């Protein structure tokens, strides 16, 4: 866990260092958008460090689309018994 945290911190630091030049020239809107994008980074980073997988984007999408898709595939798929 500590190793993952260290790697994540390193990656974030590298990203912020690389973006520092753009950040200085950015307007207020760009900085707000950048800050908003750091929210999912923080959440997903937490999932990564804690070795968790959910709740995540795939589950959000599956909640709505997986069952209807399974039904659709069920219609066009031949059953294994036939």
């Amino acid at each position, binding site marked *: 866990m500590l190793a993952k945290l260290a790697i994540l911190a390193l990656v974030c630091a590298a990203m912020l260092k690389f973006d520092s030049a753009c950040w200085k020239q950015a307007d207020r809107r*760009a900085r707000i*958008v950048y800050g908003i*994008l750091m929210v999912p980074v923080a959440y*997903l980073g937490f999932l990564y460090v804690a070795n968790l997988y959910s709740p995540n*984007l795939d589950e959000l999408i599956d909640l709505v*689309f997986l069952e209807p898709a399974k039904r659709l*595939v069920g219609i066009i798929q031949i059953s294994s018994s036939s």
Partner: protein
Amino acid sequence: MNKKESISSIQTALLFLVGITGSSIILIPASVTGAARNGAWISFLMAWLAGFLLLLSILYLQKQHPGLTFMEYSRRMVGKPVATIMAILFLLALFWQEAAIIIEVSGFFKSTMMKNTPSPVINAMFFTMAALTARAGIEVMARMFSILALIMFGCVTAVLLLVSVNFHLEFLLPVMPDGIKPILHGAYIAYGFPYAEVVIFSWILQFVRKDEAQRLGRDMCSAFVINGTTLLFSIVSSIIVLGPLAGDLKYSLYQLARLVFVQEIIERIESVIGLSLIIGSYMKSTIVLFIITRLLSQLSGLSNYRIVIFPTTLICLLLSVTMYANEASFVEDGYVMWPLFNTIAYVVPMLIVLAATWVNGRMRK
């Protein structure tokens, strides 16, 4: 930095070609053949036709709204609130797609060549390259991908030609022993990946230079025919070489490459397919990342999209390492959920805007 970027019509078509061929040339034959067996080529042609109709649709939209992005003409046609909802759906699908491209390629390398390398390391390397390339801009991408595309198609063509000594045409029969349903299932998979994704390339059509806009349709259709021919040949080759095993062995072209043996001089060339997959996935993920950042910048009203590239890339990287605990759920989502989801997220919004554009055009007359 803020100079308006433009590329030629042929470069746009090339980006489109590598975007839709990219990783699908390695991944599609096995999945479609697994569903449709010997009729996989029919499934593929059905999906290709659907993709062609989508291509014609986005070309029509670009012709009607020259120089505008999908977001800009969506707002004009359906209003800002509806366009924003469509954009958010688009964005969610793009994030999933970007993560899935890299999950798939890291899965390939984990199972074949880099068995002891942790997936996050492979993913991070791909995303770093994709981010740096996307940040360089579409002009750099177009120039660079010209050479990489030659290498990718060259490798694939070479493998398919070398493995032709193992062709058994009788493996194509019987064509539809279980009726039409497996064909439809295969078409569903092939439509979902890669043909429904044609819609996202509406985001790069605006970069075509004005003086070359007339030939864009011709060049894009040519690229689409090249893609169809290549993928069709890959699928048919998988069937006529691997026979009944074609649908059961993942990464068909990789399996074909393993069979190449010419006088003990040319053998064990499967790493060439690994190279093709790296190149294809890298190009596709770069293009998708570029589109995500363009969409984000348009949605949030940013003048410079480059500032959001690295945070977006980090989100995609973290999604790729946290989304799926096991391969089975990823495969289910990829071949069952994704065709429906990307139809709702990509195709339906495009069709709504298409209908609004057409009605608007008729009313003006």
